[in-house]
């Protein structure tokens, strides 16, 4: 009897430990399916059918490797990414890396507010009212420090991304074909296809995902002996996020690609949920989009200005008064204001704005990626926790492939590679 009790106790202790450590991975992974994420996968699925599924498979491995690296650096050093970059590479490299981070995150924040605009317009509300309102709301909630309560509400809203999974099973796509496309690579050489590939990479493996992952693991203070649990969290999170992404592609491919609609607006994207929700599809889609946009819009500008201030040693954090941390608050407000203004430019197409910002993300990613690879292989920083050979090969391959795709993208107009339609 005593034995059973002790055994049970152990099981519960283990379970509690797992639950306590699970977290950052799942949050970053849910953020994969933020507004630009949904836009990108919808665009990819509706334009190229199931052809992006194999890419997603590769990206999933890439995300696991990159996020695990970031988590490991946080666990071993207890420091943020920007902090390590500054200490190891000095001011010039740091300034360049932070500029790239700022650009990438500004683009993604613009995409989040574009998501707000697209979602609320599905409800028939003008973006000129809702977007400034959303910005004020985000700023108010975060600066007041009540983000913690709101986070849960927003995460629940994000669960509506699950409706893609249900929807996909109701549509009954040709599963054999889906599986075949998931393992057989297919490539197309035109500018739009390349941009779409970059966007898919850039919305899944993000600069801010790296920074956020490392920061949250560092701040939690993971015991290295229990590091396996963090690794599991990261892996499960990345795989889970990409399963949902795959279902977005499957849904849009099975409903829109087959009838020749290439998504250019939120109305069209919402049609992928019609088999599940009928006329309510646009509202279901809008709610999910809104939740994801607001969640990311709350975290993203904040983590960006935190990282920049960390790198340059300026006062930072919400426990500082604005007078003491002028740069921190200035950057934070600046990013939000600039994003809102961009979205409010009359006639700017929201959907392309959302996914094209992710292509830019991918183009800027190698800068951070190369620095991270160098840091994680530095024995003075990581000790015995440096990368394994596989991790190195994969990380370098990822950085180089993105660079090559970028080069191809920029020379493609010269080669006369035009979009077929």
């Amino acid at each position, binding site marked *: 009897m005593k034995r059973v009790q002790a055994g049970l106790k152990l099981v519960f202790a283990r379970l509690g430990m797992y639950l306590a450590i699970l977290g950052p991975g799942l949050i970053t992974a849910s953020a994969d399916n933020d507004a630009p994420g949904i836009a990108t996968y919808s665009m990819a699925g509706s334009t190229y059918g199931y052809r992006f599924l194999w890419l997603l498979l590769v990206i999933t491995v890439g995300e696991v490797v990159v996020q695990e690296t970031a988590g490991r650096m946080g666990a071993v*050093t*207890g420091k*943020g990414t920007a902090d390590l970059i500054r200490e190891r590479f000095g*001011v010039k490299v740091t300034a360049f890396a932070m500029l790239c981070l700022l650009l990438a995150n500004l683009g993604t924040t613009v995409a989040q507010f574009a998501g707000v605009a697209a979602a609320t317009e599905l409800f028939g509300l003008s973006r000129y009212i809702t977007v400034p309102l959303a910005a004020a709301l985000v700023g108010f909630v975060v600066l007041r420090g009540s983000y913690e309560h709101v986070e849960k509400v927003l995460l629940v809203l994000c669960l509506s991304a699950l409706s893609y999974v249900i929807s996909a099973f109701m549509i009954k796509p040709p599963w054999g074909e889906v599986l075949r496309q998931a393992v057989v690579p297919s490539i197309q050489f035109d500018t739009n296809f390349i941009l779409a590939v970059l966007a898919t990479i850039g919305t899944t493996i993000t600069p801010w995902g790296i920074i956020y992952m490392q920061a949250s693991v560092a*701040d939690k203070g993971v015991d290295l002996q229990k590091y396996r649990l963090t690794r599991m969290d990261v892996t499960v999170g990345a795989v889970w996020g990409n399963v949902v992404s795959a279902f977005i592609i499957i849904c849009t491919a099975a409903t829109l690609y087959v009838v020749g609609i290439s998504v250019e607006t939120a109305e069209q994207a919402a049609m992928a949920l019609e088999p599940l929700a009928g006329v309510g599809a646009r509202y279901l889609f809008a709610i999910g989009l809104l939740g994801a946009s607001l969640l990311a819009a709350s975290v993203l500008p904040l983590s960006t200005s*935190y990282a920049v201030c960390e790198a*340059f040693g300026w006062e930072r954090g*919400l*426990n500082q008064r604005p007078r003491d941390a002028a740069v921190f608050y200035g950057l934070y407000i600046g990013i939000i204001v600039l994003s809102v203004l961009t979205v409010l430019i009359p006639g700017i197409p929201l959907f392309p704005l959302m996914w094209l910002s992710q292509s830019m993300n991918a183009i800027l990613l190698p800068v951070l990626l190369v620095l991270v690879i160098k840091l994680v292989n530095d024995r003075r920083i990581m000790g015995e926790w440096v990368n394994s050979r596989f991790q190195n090969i994969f990380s370098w391959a990822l950085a180089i492939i993105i660079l090559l795709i970028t080069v191809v993208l920029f020379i493609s107009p010269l080669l006369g590679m035009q979009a077929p339609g």
Partner: protein
Amino acid sequence: MLYLSQLQGKQVWDAWSEPLGKFQDVLVGNVDQPFPPVRAIAMETPDGAERLIPASQLSGLFPSILLKVPGEEVQPYTPKGDELRLVDRVLDRQIVDIDGRRVVRVNDVQLARLRDQFCITGVDVGGQGLLRRLGLEPMAQAVASRLKRRLPAQVIPWEDVAPVQDTDPLRLRISRDKISQLPPADIAAILNDLDRRTGEALARGLDNETLADMLEESPADVQVNILSQLPPERAADILEEMDPDEAADLLADLPPQTTEHLLDLMEDEDAEDVRALLAYPEDTAGGIMTTEFAYVPSGLTVREALEYLRNSEDASDDEVMYYVYVLDSADVLQGVISLRDLVMAPPDKPIEELIETDPVVVYPLTSQNEAAYLIAKYNLLAIPVVEEENGVMLGIVTVDDALDAVLPTAWKKRLPRFF
């Protein structure tokens, strides 16, 4: 003024103007002094090896690094083991600015020639240092002078600098001694701004009293992290040092077994107070009250009462002692008098004639908002908490703890995780 960044990557020349190698680092000694002297410079020879040149053979550092002797006569410097490498360990690192009580990043290190040797004078943590590192200083300088302004310089004298990212225990101790002189709230803020590992290493080395004071000023998650890093006996000692209400709050955030274990290790008297407090929910008067308050038995004169207080352990534990409470033999609250009125009263007057006999009280399960409201309404500095059935006095809620309930302190505004 000479800056470390101006030396980086420069050629080192010997007395015959022959290039010897590339400058790499500066080694300084006696870092606990206000102006630590440069002991040697490190340079990279053309074949990639590192070579240390003693400061005594340096003729000048700026505008170019020049030796007094020809290359072949340079005596190599043998490190004594206590040198601090500036580029490697100080530049770009976080340090604590003792005077400004904050964590800053070193953008540059200022060097100067003092009599016949070079030494550190301060560290540049301002924008000018950043611009210099980016190679933009002359341009910014030109713009600034056009605008008839001066670039803001922020150089902290070395005396006020506490390097913290260091593996050398001796240097870390010096830094810790400097930091522990600061007010506990500032120590808490500094440790919170540092990266986790460094912050916890510093905290572990503080003495029990400083650490207890600092923990009281820290957010809950930091408290839990630091306490769980300590050996249980030490953690228990620190909990004894803390005010019972703060200790109870902290223990409430720990896993139940740990709480029990720590309570068992604490001295019985302290543990009992904390246990009593742990029984009340956190958002009630019982949850935020402290059990340490000054009281006197009834039937004393003013002189006797003051004498009693001087010898009373409970009174000496009372953090602020705004009021003195009069209790009967069963600890039932009879009345209250402010310390001011007690001190100003004629010594022979019976205390019963002075006390307010029907004070405003709260019960342990009164909400903390209600307690805060009563304190504000009656302009009190503390409000007594009594047992509802029999009037036995349990503790007091002070105005600062009550205010925390209504106006969360800056710490509580933290987002989850980093930001």
